[in-house]
């Protein structure tokens, strides 16, 4: 199994290439400069493995939620690579990748993944891990005010920069443990993609799309006239 993955949903550009166990990775804090480093990093990890694009089994990408522009860059690159190399694509949710990170780093099996969504909101989802079946989504990704995030069982692990931007959140939710520095990585994206590739659960480049979760991004002329606000 050979997978190349990319995540640029945060200010870290993350690229990984590996077989599901051993990976060549690049994690660079690039701010908004994902575009400049993405393909050079991909060349580097492929070269490190000694693989060509054509020899891969799939391209996986962090589909979101996260930075709108960031997830589109990852999506556009996955589309372009897959279209040119004749490969299938596996879109992976960034909140699930965050749960995978929490499991790898902290052995967490019940995870509330929480990413800062700006505009005084967070992206939130809850996952439970089964040793055989993998992650099950117990609460689907949504965008909420931090005050509106419902408290999960106290044994749940909190992960993501939502806890850094909203320092009172973990205590309000009664979480015993959390990691505010956790973020979705390309390695986690690739690990989650492996079973999907084995199941044949891939999409064509044309059907690989970002997952935004926040859909209300502008006011219509009628809403503006009525004095509505975002």
């Amino acid at each position, binding site marked *: 199994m050979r997978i190349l993955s990319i995540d640029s949903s945060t200010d870290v550009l993350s690229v990984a290439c590996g077989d599901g166990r051993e990976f060549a990775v690049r994690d660079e804090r690039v701010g908004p400069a994902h*575009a*400049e*480093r*993405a*393909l*050079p990093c*991909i*060349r580097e990890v492929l070269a490190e493995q000694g693989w060509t*694009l054509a020899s891969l089994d799939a391209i996986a990408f962090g589909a979101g939620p996260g930075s*709108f*522009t960031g997830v*589109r*860059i990852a*999506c*556009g*690159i*996955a*589309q*372009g*690579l*897959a*279209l*040119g*190399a004749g490969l299938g694509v596996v879109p992976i949710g960034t909140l699930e990748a965050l749960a995978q990170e929490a499991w790898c780093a902290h052995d967490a099996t019940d995870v509330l993944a929480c990413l800062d969504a700006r505009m005084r909101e967070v992206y939130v989802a809850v996952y439970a891990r089964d040793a055989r079946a993998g992650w099950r989504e117990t609460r689907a990704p949504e965008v909420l005010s931090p005050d509106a995030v419902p408290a999960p069982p106290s044994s749940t692990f909190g992960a993501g920069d939502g806890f850094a931007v909203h320092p009172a959140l973990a205590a309000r939710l009664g979480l015993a443990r959390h990691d505010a520095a956790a973020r979705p990585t390309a390695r986690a994206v690739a690990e989650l993609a492996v079973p999907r590739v084995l199941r044949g659960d891939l999409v064509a*480049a*044309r059907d*690989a*799309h*970002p997952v*935004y979760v926040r859909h209300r*991004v*502008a*006011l*219509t*002329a*009628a809403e*503006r006239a009525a004095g509505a606000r975002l």
Partner: protein
Amino acid sequence: MRVLGIETSCDETGVAVYDSAAGLLAHRLHSQIDLHARYGGVVPELASRDHVRRLVPLIEEVAGESGTPLTRLDGIAYTEGPGLAGALLVGASVANALGMALGKPVVGIHHLEGHLLSPLLADPRPDFPFVALLVSGGHSQIHEVEGVGRYRLIGDTLDDAAGEAFDKTATLLGLPYPGGPALAALAVSGRAGVVTLPRPMIDSGDLMMSFSGLKTAVRTLVRKRQAAGTLDARAKADIAAEFQCAVVDVLIAKAVAALDETGASRLVVAGGVGANRDLRERLHAEASRRGARVHFPDLAFCTDNGAMIALAGAMRLEHAKEGDGAFTVRPRWDLASLGAA
């Protein structure tokens, strides 16, 4: 050389395959007008979201229609700027990744260079040098064009672009988005000269333009008529006709002055306003009276499109070197900074 061109700088997803020997082989355009209409203008985030859904299917369509397996391409060109950053990044990401996967060179194209060269898609194509009048929603410029990459800006607007003035005036008259074409359609039934609007800077003695005062004059007129209760359909049509006449008068005067100043005998008109029928007819008449030739791109290539990017790409890729895949976009980009191909 056979090149895939990708344009995503604003609210149209344009894709085309151009061959330097055989010409334009296929082109597709998806316009987002319906998507943005209820917002009263282009919403950059929604534009970007649409581009990333449309682009790959459009690439597959033009590849199929042109009989060009992607591996048969000699290169890929995309709009690097100027434009909406998020929208540009969609085209840049897909183009560069596709180029890397195919092992083909990729080149970023200046959007206005695409427009300036778009008349070369027509048959017969104008020879260099020529004067280009570039009039769209974002630009009102006059360039002296000596060759690919050799552009000298000799005229510009001090404020609104001509197309922008059309759109804003249409809004004042209560016309639906996008206003420019709706205003031109309304002008057909109106009578220029029934009301009087200024021809800003028409006698300025240089090639500079200004259209914001014209829009303000319409606003004043509309308010006066509204207060008097005389802003009926007929009055609106008359205002539209006079407004269009004023803009076209200014554009023709400046284009003619540019021909005089440069001594060029060919005038090329590009950009969305180049689709305006009144401008086309009157410019043709004026040019032939003076023994000059005027070239318009086909209507389909007046607005943003992938064909002009593929064409400019083919011209530039002849000299391109293979890079490492690092790419960027330039939401603001001075055309004069381009080098010759």
